[in-house]
């Protein structure tokens, strides 16, 4: 466990790294700071600190790939790139029929820097089971990078009948554990981004003068920002609880609330930032782009909410989560 003073130091060093670096440079800084060791020792501290700060600073790293591999139980989780599920989905991004591997998912910027890529495949032969394999990066077709958030560089990745190697000698945990951990990581990043959007709007509300007073004196403005804070705290509360009481349901709910809460925050903050926030030179739009894309990773607010409701209506039972 990383606690007390150590946790403060850890957080300070990661904060400095995320304030200075992004992409490959941030990956290098994280290696130097021992973030991967921290992930092995104290998952909660490593994931919550890095992803919240990464979201806050609007930077990117390959940490999500590492988190997925760690969730699968791999011993050296940073070794390979990882194929993420498709937009809005948390299903394994590949299928294995006989010895035919079909891949269809997403890749992040770090894919270009990898030689091998970890792929989790559904095995239709054995119902519900998944298999983790590695493939050569060069065997995958990677779509153009661009879209809503070019800095995040998410691209579609596909491949048909490509050679693969099962991951030998390592007891891999199931895909659901990896999904839950990834959902929590992305939820932290969404919340970090949302908190920065709120901070930008709050500063603006205190400094922008109209009608002879800071716009933050207008109740309509104040209530929008209060609403944003409530949405953020709602998501953060469930996320904390998901660490306290590990459960796939809470991880999924935290991800959904974080996605929805970040959108709510963006809507109110954009209105308060108004004209200046609509310019490309103001940082707001970079956060807005980021949260819209992050919402789509490992299940969106929409798809996860629909799935939860479907299961509850089918079982007609409400799981007794969140006891004291």
């Amino acid at each position: 466990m990383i606690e007390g003073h150590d946790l403060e130091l850890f957080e300070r060093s990661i904060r400095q790294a995320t304030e200075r670096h992004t992409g490959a440079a941030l990956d290098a800084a994280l290696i130097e700071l021992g973030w991967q060791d921290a992930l092995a020792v104290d998952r909660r501290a490593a994931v919550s600190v890095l992803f919240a700060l990464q979201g806050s600073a609007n930077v990117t790293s390959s940490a999500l790939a590492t988190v997925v591999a760690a969730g699968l139980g791999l011993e050296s989780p940073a070794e390979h790139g990882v194929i993420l599920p498709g937009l809005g989905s948390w299903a394994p991004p590949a299928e294995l029929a006989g010895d035919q591997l079909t891949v269809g998912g997403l890749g992040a910027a770090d894919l270009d820097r990898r030689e091998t890529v970890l792929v989790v495949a559904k095995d239709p032969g054995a119902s519900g089971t998944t298999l983790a394999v590695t493939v050569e990066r060069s065997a995958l077709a990677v779509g153009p990078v661009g879209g809503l958030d070019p800095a995040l560089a998410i691209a579609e990745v596909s491949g048909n009948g490509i050679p693969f190697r099962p991951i030998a000698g390592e007891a891999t945990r199931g895909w659901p554990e990896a999904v839950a951990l990834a959902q929590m990581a992305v939820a932290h990043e969404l919340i970090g981004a949302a908190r920065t959007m709120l901070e930008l709007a709050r500063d603006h509300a205190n400094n922008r003068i109209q009608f002879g007073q800071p716009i933050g004196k207008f109740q309509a403005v104040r209530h929008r920002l209060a609403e944003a804070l409530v949405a953020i705290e709602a998501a953060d509360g469930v996320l904390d609880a998901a660490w306290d009481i590990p459960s796939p349901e809470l991880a999924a709910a935290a991800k959904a609330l974080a996605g929805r809460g970040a959108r709510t925050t963006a809507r109110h903050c954009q209105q308060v930032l108004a004209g200046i926030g609509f310019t490309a030179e103001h940082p707001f739009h970079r956060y807005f782009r980021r949260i819209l894309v992050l919402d789509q990773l490992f299940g969106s607010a929409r798809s996860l909410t629909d799935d939860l409701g479907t299961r509850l209506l089918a079982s007609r039972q409400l799981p007794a989560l969140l006891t004291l």
Partner: protein
Amino acid sequence: MASSRDDVMELDSFRKGVDHWLDEQEDALAPDHPGLGTLDQQMAQLAKVKRLGYEAGWVRWGWPERVGGLGGSPILRAYLGEALTARDVVEPGVYSMTEVLAPTMIGFARPELAASLVPRLLRGDETWCQGFSEPGTGSNLASLTCRATRTDDGWRVSGQKVWTSYAQYAARCVLLTRTGSQESAHRGITALFIDMDSPGITVRPLQTMHGVDEFSEVFYDDVAVPFERTLGEVDKGWSVAMDLLPYERSTSLWHKGAYLHRKLEHLLAAVPAGALSPAEVGEVVQILYAFRARSRATQYRMAAGDPLGPETSVDKVLVATAEQAVFDLAAAGLAGEVVLGDDGASRRWRSEFLYSRAATIYGGSAEIQRNIIARRILDLGDDR
């Protein structure tokens, strides 16, 4: 298993003990009436449960020994209320007054007064009420006018309160009075602890829209109140009221969360196939999770002795949002029952749906909570 004072009751053994007691005493604790019952029946039920719980010891845990408690963390009270509401043994609304008013007495009454009267509240011998709102004073509590005048042998109180919940049942009232000039606003308010059978008090029950007539108008006509019934310092009643508010937003909100969970369980079991879309069900459940997760953290903060402050306004916004979301869902999924039904179960859904509309009004309205968040958490400065 009888609980003893010497134990340091940890949550896990407390939970086991309470659950065991609830199983064992299921028949004795069950309401005598079917369904929601009338308010008279609810109040009688509450008194019975408190008495049995006090005798068995469970109701005393989490309260200080000097007021008849057995000590231990307040989180034990959070669990007891959760267990009682989750089993439909008590209604969270009537149960919550203890959680709101006992801490005020413990914090501000003379120790002898608290020692002699709080046990009566815990044991269910008495109901207490909270007289804050007046015809001209709702959200702007600092404008209250009900006057307490100092005489040689005590206070004399004259004025009117309104929407005082359970006043018609109450033996005592925590009353906010004006002791300074009207312009003194929050600086000239004094909190008094009043016997409701004092000469000069008239209680007139009001009808509510949900059919459970919980609150009253209360008229005070030259009511004598001894000085030793002053809570806190003279002219410092504002801090009594402010100190009480975080309690309104902690333990009793946790109980409300358990109740809402129970209601959603009932709804999922009763809703006709196809009446609700998965997306709307999923979203309401997430909102309830969000409130319960937040409130759970607040219970642990309180147990650790952390002071509670403006951040509990977030809890309050979330609980009101969750309550209205749960009952909006019920009204959509059980439209036949809520709109047309006349059997007991339907009347209960209807009444509870209507009551949920008050969740954004009482205990500081939704707007007042957002004002607090903006000023005190987001630091947006004064709004004037």
